[in-house]
C-alpha cells in the first residue's frame, strides 16, 4: 500500500511515479491525500481532498482512530519506540469530528483511511514539498513519522517515510554540508570533536563554532547590514523565493554580490561579479538522489568560452585568500576528502560507482550500500521517538478581503525558473503560466477557460490566463513559479517554519479578479 501525501509525483517525479503505477496495476492500494485531484488520483483507491495546510489535523485524526480502535502495531511501538503515551494524549485531542472539521473531509473517510492502513501488511508513505513548504513543515514531517512508527511501517523495504527530493542533488548538497549547522556527513559544527577533525583535515586552526544563517536570514541580513557580501551559486533567488518584490529589495541592498551560474538570470542582474560555470555534461562528478544513491555524472563537452568547473572557481578563491587545496579534480575531491570525512560515505569511491551508484550508509569499501534505513526497527538514534504535534493554521488564511487560498508548485513540462527547460524546446509544451481554478469558482465569477485574469495577494498582483479545471477544489488557486512575468512568487507569503525557515509556498490568501 502507498500513502502519498503532498506529492504530485506524476509531474514532479515522473519516473518514480511509473513504479508506483506499476505497483497499483499489480494490486497495491494507493491513498492520495491532496487538496487537488492531481493525476495520481486516477490510480488511487481513495482520494482524500484535505484542505490546504490541514495535514496534521488529518494525520492526528487517523492516529486517533488507530489508537482508539486498537489498530496500531503494539509490538513495534513497545519494542522500538518511546513517547507513545505523549503521542496518545496529543492525538486524543483530535477526535474524528474535530479532525474532520479542520481538514474538510468526512469522519468516515478518516476512519476508512485508518482502517485501511491498519489492515495493510505494509505501507510506504511518500511526501514531497506539499508537506514541507508550510509554516508547520517540520511538524508535518514529524507527524508522518509518528504515523509510520505507530503502524510499524519502519525499517522494512516497502515502508518508511520517503521524501521525494525536489532537485537532482538537493540530497547531495545536504550530505556535503552546504548547510549552516553541519559539516559534510551531518557532523555538527557545534561539536568540538567534529571541528577538530575538520581542522586537521583542512589544515586550519579554528573553525567557526556556532551555526550560521539560513537563506531567509542571510537575505534579511543584507537589509539590516549584518551580511555585506552574498555569494549565490546556481540559484535564481529573484524568482524562486517567496515575495519577489521583497527578495529584490534585499538583493538590491547588498554591498557585494557574486553570482556563479551557467546563464544570466533575474538574480545575476544584482551581481557585482559573475563567474561563468561549467554545466551538467561539462564536468565529472556525482549526484545523490532521493534514495541516497550516489551516481556518477560525466563530462562529455568543454564549457563554453572560458567558463570553468565550479570546484575550480572555489579553489582559486581559496588560493587567493592564502589556502592551497590539494585536490585537483572531482574524483580527488570525492575519493580523498568527501568519502574520507563523511562516515556514511567511506565505502563509496569513484571506481565503485562506474555503473550503478551506491546508496549510503556505505561504511567500508566492500559494503553493498543500504537500500532502506532503520532495518528491523533499529533506529539510527536508538529507539524511535514519537514527536506529538499540534495542528497550526497557515500564516495567512483566506478571509473576506482575500477569499482564495493560493498553493504553488511545479509543472511537468518546465523546471523551476526555466533557465534550462526554457532553452530546450519545452516552451512548446508549456508556453505560459496559468492560474488553475475550479469550474464552480469560474462560473461564479464569470471567468472563461483561458481568459486572462488578475490574481492578487497582499504582496503583489499578476495577470495570468485562467485554467478552469476539475483538478482544483472551490476556493483554491494553483500556480507555478516557472515564468517571470506571472510567477506565483510575486504573490507568495514570506512566512517561514520557525525551525527550518522553509517558506510557506503552499498557502497564502489571494483574490481572483476578472479583468
Amino acid at each position, binding site marked *: 500500500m502507498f500513502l502519498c501525501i503532498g506529492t504530485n509525483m506524476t509531474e514532479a*517525479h515522473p*519516473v*518514480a511515479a511509473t513504479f508506483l*503505477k*506499476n505497483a497499483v496495476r499489480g494490486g497495491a492500494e494507493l491513498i492520495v491525500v491532496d487538496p487537488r485531484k492531481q493525476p495520481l488520483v486516477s490510480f488511487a483507491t481513495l482520494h482524500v481532498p484535505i484542505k490546504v495546510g490541514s495535514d496534521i489535523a488529518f494525520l492526528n485524526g487517523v492516529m486517533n482512530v488507530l489508537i482508539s480502535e486498537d489498530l496500531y502495531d503494539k509490538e513495534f511501538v513497545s519494542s522500538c519506540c518511546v513517547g507513545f503515551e505523549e503521542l496518545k494524549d496529543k492525538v486524543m485531542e483530535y477526535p474524528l469530528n474535530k479532525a474532520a472539521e479542520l481538514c474538510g473531509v468526512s469522519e468516515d473517510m478518516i476512519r476508512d483511511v485508518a482502517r485501511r492502513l491498519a489492515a495493510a501488511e505494509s505501507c510506504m508513505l511518500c511526501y514531497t514539498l506539499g508537506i514541507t513548504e508550510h509554516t508547520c513543515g517540520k511538524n508535518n514531517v514529524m507527524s508522518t513519522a509518528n504515523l509510520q512508527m505507530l503502524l510499524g511501517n519502519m525499517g522494512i523495504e516497502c515502508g518508511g517515510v520517503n521524501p*521525494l527530493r*525536489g*532537485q537532482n542533488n*538537493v540530497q*547531495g548538497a545536504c550530505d*556535503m*554540508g*552546504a548547510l549552516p549547522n553541519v559539516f559534510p556527513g551531518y557532523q555538527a559544527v557545534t561539536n568540538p570533536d567534529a571541528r577538530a577533525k*575538520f581542522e586537521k583535515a583542512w589544515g586550519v586552526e*579554528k*573553525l*567557526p563554532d556556532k*551555526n*550560521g544563517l539560513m*537563506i531567509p536570514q542571510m537575505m534579511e541580513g543584507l537589509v539590516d547590514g549584518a*551580511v*555585506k557580501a*552574498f555569494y549565490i*551559486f*546556481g*540559484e535564481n533567488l529573484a524568482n524562486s523565493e517567496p515575495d519577489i518584490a521583497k527578495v529584490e529589495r534585499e538583493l538590491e541592498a547588498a554591498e557585494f554580490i557574486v553570482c556563479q551560474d551557467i*546563464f544570466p538570470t533575474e538574480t545575476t542582474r544584482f551581481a557585482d*561579479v559573475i563567474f*561563468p*560555470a561549467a*554545466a551538467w*555534461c561539462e*564536468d565529472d*562528478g*556525482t*549526484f545523490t*538522489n532521493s*534514495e541516497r*544513491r550516489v*551516481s*556518477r*555524472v*560525466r563530462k*562529455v563537452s568543454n564549457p563554453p*568560452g572560458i*567558463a570553468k568547473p565550479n570546484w575550480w572557481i*572555489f*579553489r582559486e*578563491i581559496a588560493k587567493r*585568500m592564502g589556502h592551497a587545496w590539494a585536490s585537483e579534480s572531482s574524483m580527488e575531491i*570525492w575519493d580523498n576528502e*568527501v568519502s574520507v570525512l563523511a562516515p556514511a560515505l567511506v565505502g563509496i569511491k569513484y571506481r565503485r560507482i562506474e555503473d550503478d551508484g551506491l546508496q549510503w550508509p556505505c561504511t567500508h569499501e566492500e559494503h553493498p550500500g543500504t537500500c532502506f534505513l532503520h532495518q528491523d526497527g533499529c533506529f539510527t538514534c536508538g529507539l524511535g521517538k514519537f514527536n506529538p504535534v499540534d495542528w497550526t493554521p497557515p500564516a495567512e488564511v483566506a478571509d473576506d478581503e482575500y477569499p482564495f487560498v493560493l498553493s504553488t508548485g511545479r509543472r*511537468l513540462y518546465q*523546471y523551476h525558473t526555466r533557465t*534550462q*527547460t*526554457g*532553452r530546450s*524546446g519545452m516552451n512548446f509544451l508549456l508556453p505560459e503560466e496559468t492560474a488553475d481554478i475550479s469550474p464552480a469558482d469560474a462560473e461564479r465569477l464569470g471567468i472563461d477557460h483561458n481568459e486572462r485574469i488578475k490574481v492578487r495577494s497582499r504582496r503583489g498582483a499578476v495577470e495570468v490566463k485562467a485554467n478552469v479545471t476539475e483538478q482544483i477544489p472551490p476556493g483554491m488557486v494553483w500556480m507555478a513559479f516557472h515564468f517571470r512575468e506571472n510567477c506565483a512568487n510575486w504573490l507568495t507569503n514570506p512566512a517561514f517554519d520557525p525551525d527550518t525557515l522553509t517558506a510557506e*509556498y503552499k498557502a497564502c490568501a489571494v483574490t481572483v479578479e476578472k479583468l
Partner: protein
Amino acid sequence: MPTGTFHLNGKSVEFQPGQSILDAATDNGIKIPTLCYLKGATPTGACRMCVVEVAGARSLIAACSTPAADGMEVWTDSERVHRSRKLTVELLLASGNHNCLPCEANGNCRLQDLAYHYGITDIPFPITPQPHPTEDDNPFIIRDFSRCILCGRCVQACNEVVVNRAISYGYRGADLKIVAGTDVPYFESDCVFCGQCVEVCPVGALIEKKSKFMGRSWDLKKVRTTCPYCGVGCQQWLHMNKDGKIAKITAVEDGAPNKGRLCVKGRFAYDFIYSEDRLTTPLIKENGEFREASWDEALDLVADKFSELKEKYGPDSIAGVSCARSINEDSYQMQKLFRSVIGTNNIDHCART
C-alpha cells in the same frame, strides 16, 4: 514451486513454473528472435517472429506468449520455423516504407537485422503504401507510420511500463494503426512526451526529432550519466556524435534506479547546454553595466573584497548559497571555502524547499 523439464531442440532443460517458452529458452542459452516482445510487459504474440514448433501442435506457436510445460517438445531451429520467420519478415518489409537509406534507425533496427539474417534481397510481395501521413508537429517525437510494423511495443510501454495510457491500437484489420487518444497527434492527446515509445520502437517509426541528421547510429558513442532534473536520479545514455554533441538520450536499461525509463525532461531537455545565452566569460559590473573580465581580475576582485569585509566586519558578514543542481564536489568545495577560508558557517542551499 519445483522447476519443470521440457525438451528444447532435443535436449532436456529446466524451466521455472509460469515461464514462457521464450524466457525458458533464453535462460538455457537459446536465442529466439523477437520484435514485439517487451520485457516487463504482458506478451502480445503480435508479430509472430518468435514462432517455434511444438510437437503435437497443429501450427507454429508464439514462444513469447506460450508457457513452457512439462514434457513439451520444442524446436526453435527447424526448417519450418525458419520458413515462417522469413515469411514474416518479408511481409513486414512489404507492409510499408522500409527504405533504410534515409532512416534514422539505420544500423539500429531489428527489422533490418532480421532481413539481413534471413538473407532477404527481394520482397516477393507488392509493397503496400501507407495511408497515414507522418506526424511531425512537435519538437520532440516524429511518428512515421509508413515505417510502423504494428508490433505494439509502444502501446505496451505506454500502458504497462510508464502507465501514461496515451496510445493504443485503433481501427481494425488492414486499417490497424497505433493511435493516440481518438487518433489525434501526440500533442493533442494525453501523451506526456516521456518518449518511452521511442525508446522501445524496434524500427524507425518513432524517432527523436532532435537526433535527426545528428549522426548515424554506428558513429554514436554512448556515455553513461545521471539526469540533471528531479531527485529521482535517472541513469541516461548520452549518445555522442563525432562532433562531440549529444545526438540523443536514452535510458540505461536495467540501471538503478530508473530501469530503462525517462521522462520528458530527462529525455529531451538537454540542449540548454548548447544555448547561445550561456555565460562564457567572467563579468564585472562597472557603472551599472557588466563588462568582460579575465579570470585573474575577477577572482582577485572577489578574494580581495572578501578579505576586506572579513577584516572590517568579521567573517559572518559574508554568506553563501550553494547549488542543489550541481555536483556534490562543488557543494563540498563551497562549504569548505566558507568554513575553512572565510571562517563562517553562513552556508546554505535550498535544502528545505
